[in-house]
């Protein structure tokens, strides 16, 4: 009987084994995919990579293999999905969210929240972490960072002071009383300390105390006497350095050379491009105190009017929310998160125009041009002299072939920024469509001349050729081109 049972069981097991073939592991399938690919059997490679990714949907290697093979085979949607899944395996935030309430977990959560623009969540996490470890310098640095983003500069300086005071007393003595020559060596040998001083200088500048920022920069040898930082940021040699390096040189020129109005002016434009409204306004205003006659300062005044909210103060919290929202939308593709932050920014600062422009951008990308126009109009209600809003409105209206309205918006845009090459070419197109050919030709000629002056001639070559043909034979059936032209410093990135 026993023997019979054993035979029956064996038969069942073996029969089952024949019916259900054991599935291959994702690792085996992945290796098979690689092998098939090497041997040129691409469909087999894709099939194996698909199996590997289905068997191990959390495996980055399997997802990457599937993406690569699918892309190679022209299955672009499938590749996009696989790559997207691989990118979505971002470990830091999940770990921070699921972690227990330790100092490390809270700091990680706070840092991530701050990065994402969730400023209240960051404040709560840092607050809880400080309660657990009140003397932790990393937490005080995090609090200083958050305070800067919220515009609480005094609090930020106090937090930095707490970190300095937590150093051993010989280091504190050196830091407070040693001469500049010693500070230079101290900063060179202690990078953390040097970074803290750099942040302190930035905070003082942003607080509006440029004098104290300059003093601190001298005191801690961030800038050297007699060195021409402004000169280093100009000329052919400077044209080869990266944008970041040039930014750094202009910052040092602003700190070391209070009369170098042109470099201070450029530094302000860099900051404005990057979206730092408060510091941009302070630095541009500082630049306008120096140098030329009132007449030559007119472009500067126009810049403040059209790019810096007419010199009105934008709450720092709104600025920080906008900065984070922009990157969440553009880099992370997080539409909901970005829109939530932009809404919050508008609640905090209803007259801050950049969130309106960004909302319009999102609506336009979502295929809703009417909503985009509404946001742009609301932006102009908040700030009627915003060049970017007018420029974008003119562009959107042009795409909808609403020529007259487009013309009105673009005329004002180029009045506020006469070197707006792209705006002039779009205006020219709107004029052409309405049969206003003389003005079309004048605007195009203007744009082409400006572009050639700024080494952007190739970008407007099509428009120039069209104008030549127009001059020779008169208007034709096709509309003139209105290409994208790389904007000048101070008018980009938004």
């Amino acid at each position: 009987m026993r023997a019979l049972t054993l035979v029956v069981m064996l038969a069942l097991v073996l029969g089952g084994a024949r019916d259900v073939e054991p599935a291959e592991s994702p690792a085996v399938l992945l290796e098979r995919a690689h092998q098939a690919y090497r041997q040129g059997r691409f469909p087999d490679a894709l099939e194996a990579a698909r199996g590997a990714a289905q068997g191990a949907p959390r495996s980055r290697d399997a997802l990457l293999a599937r993406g690569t093979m699918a892309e190679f085979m022209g299955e672009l949607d499938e590749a996009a999905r696989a790559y997207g899944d691989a990118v979505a395996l971002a470990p830091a935030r999940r770990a921070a969210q699921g972690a227990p309430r330790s100092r490390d977990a809270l700091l990680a959560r706070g840092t991530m929240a701050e990065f994402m623009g969730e400023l209240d969540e960051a404040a709560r996490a840092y607050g809880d972490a400080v309660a657990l470890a009140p003397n932790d310098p990393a937490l005080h640095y995090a609090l200083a960072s958050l305070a800067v983003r919220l515009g609480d500069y005094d609090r930020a300086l106090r937090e930095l002071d707490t970190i300095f005071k937590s150093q051993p007393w010989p280091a504190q003595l050196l830091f407070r009383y040693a001469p500049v020559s010693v500070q230079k060596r101290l900063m060179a040998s202690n990078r953390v300390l040097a970074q803290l001083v750099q942040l302190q200088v930035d905070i003082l500048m942003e607080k509006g105390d440029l004098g104290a920022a300059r003093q601190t920069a001298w005191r801690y040898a961030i800038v050297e006497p007699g060195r021409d930082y402004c000169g280093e940021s100009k000329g052919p040699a400077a044209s080869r350095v990266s944008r970041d390096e040039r930014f750094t040189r202009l910052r040092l020129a602003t700190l070391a050379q209070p009369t170098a109005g042109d470099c201070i002016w450029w530094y302000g434009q860099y900051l404005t491009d990057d979206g730092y409204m408060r510091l941009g306004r302070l630095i541009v205003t500082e630049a306008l105190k120096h140098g030329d006659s009132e007449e030559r300062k007119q472009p500067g005044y126009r810049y403040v009017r059209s790019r810096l909210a007419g010199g009105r103060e934008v709450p720092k919290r709104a600025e920080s929310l906008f900065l984070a929202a922009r990157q969440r939308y553009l880099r992370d593709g997080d539409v909901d998160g970005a829109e939530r932050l932009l809404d919050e920014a508008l609640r905090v600062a209803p007259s801050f125009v950049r969130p309106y422009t960004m909302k319009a951008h999102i609506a336009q990308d979502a295929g809703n041009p009417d909503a985009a126009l509404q946001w742009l109009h609301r932006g102009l209600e908040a700030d009627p002299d915003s060049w970017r809003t007018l420029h974008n409105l003119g562009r959107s209206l042009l795409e909808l072939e609403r020529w007259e309205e487009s013309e009105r918006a673009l005329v004002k845009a180029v009045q506020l920024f006469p070197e707006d090459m792209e705006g002039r070419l779009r205006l020219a197109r709107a004029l052409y469509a309405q049969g206003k050919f003389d003005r079309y030709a004048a605007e195009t000629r203007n744009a082409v001349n400006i572009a050639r002056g700024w080494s952007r001639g190739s970008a407007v070559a099509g428009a120039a050729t069209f104008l030549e043909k127009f001059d020779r034979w008169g208007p034709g059936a096709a509309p003139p081109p209105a290409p994208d032209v790389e904007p000048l410093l101070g008018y980009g990135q938004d």
Partner: protein
Amino acid sequence: MISCAAPPKNANVAERRECVPATRRAGHRFFIASRNAAAQIAFRSLVEDGQRERALAYARDHGWLALSSDWCGGESAFDFETTGALAVLAHPDRAGCAAEHGIRAADLGRVRMARFLLQHALATPLDPSIRARVEHTLRYGLPEHDVPKLAESLYRTASRLDRVYRQPTEEIGVCHKVIAADPRLSWPYHIIGRDHMLRGDHRGALPWLEKALEVGPRDLKALYNYAVTLEWLDRREEAIAAYQKVLAVEPDNAKVHASLGMAFDRLGRHDQARQHMELALQLDPRQREARDYFNHQFGRDARGGPTAFTAR
């Protein structure tokens, strides 16, 4: 806490005193290493020649085996190749600890030593991720055939002329000797091609890289540079196919994802460009090309720091 390996100039007396034992050990190691500099070369030659017993006896005769009871861990007075070989010979059951030494040796072109260390490592239990790297190195980081000793030695000379002495003219001369000694080795062709690339002569680089891939189709470095060269020559679709071939073998190579992303971007295939740039950054958040790409597209990411300067 300061690092005793490189104490800062401003370390105080107490901190320096803490470092005394470590400093003494380091001095002793330096003494041992310098006294055995020539012997290490002889030992490695025996290992590379397959004379394991003689190599082990040589190490024993020189008193090296008494220096350490564990060549897999702790500090070693010898260079990484000698240390790895001693680990394999002294503890064959734990030869896996020499895996990293083998990978490094392969990266430096030490074909025989790398193969010795990696094959022995592979014969022991290994962490799956290390095993995968060892297998990958054996398959793609080393030539498939046995490289004559003369060719390997000459290649090492060429490599030093390139990496240490920065003498490209002499380096190319030596590469031609390597080719004469072993025409089947892809590396010298690749080096000559790369030298043309560095001089901006991409048209001149192409035949050398093609030759490298003809004799060594698994040479991923040559394949990558081949793709770069094709891109320079405006043969962008072919460049993309070549980058994809590298990625099929190394799907987690951030640099290649970034290069492929740039190639797609130049072709106007912006969605694919962005996908690869995102992958490159996920695989290596510091990947410069991908970071520059996003900064150019979307402006500086202000989230990286509280101020414009610290965010950079």
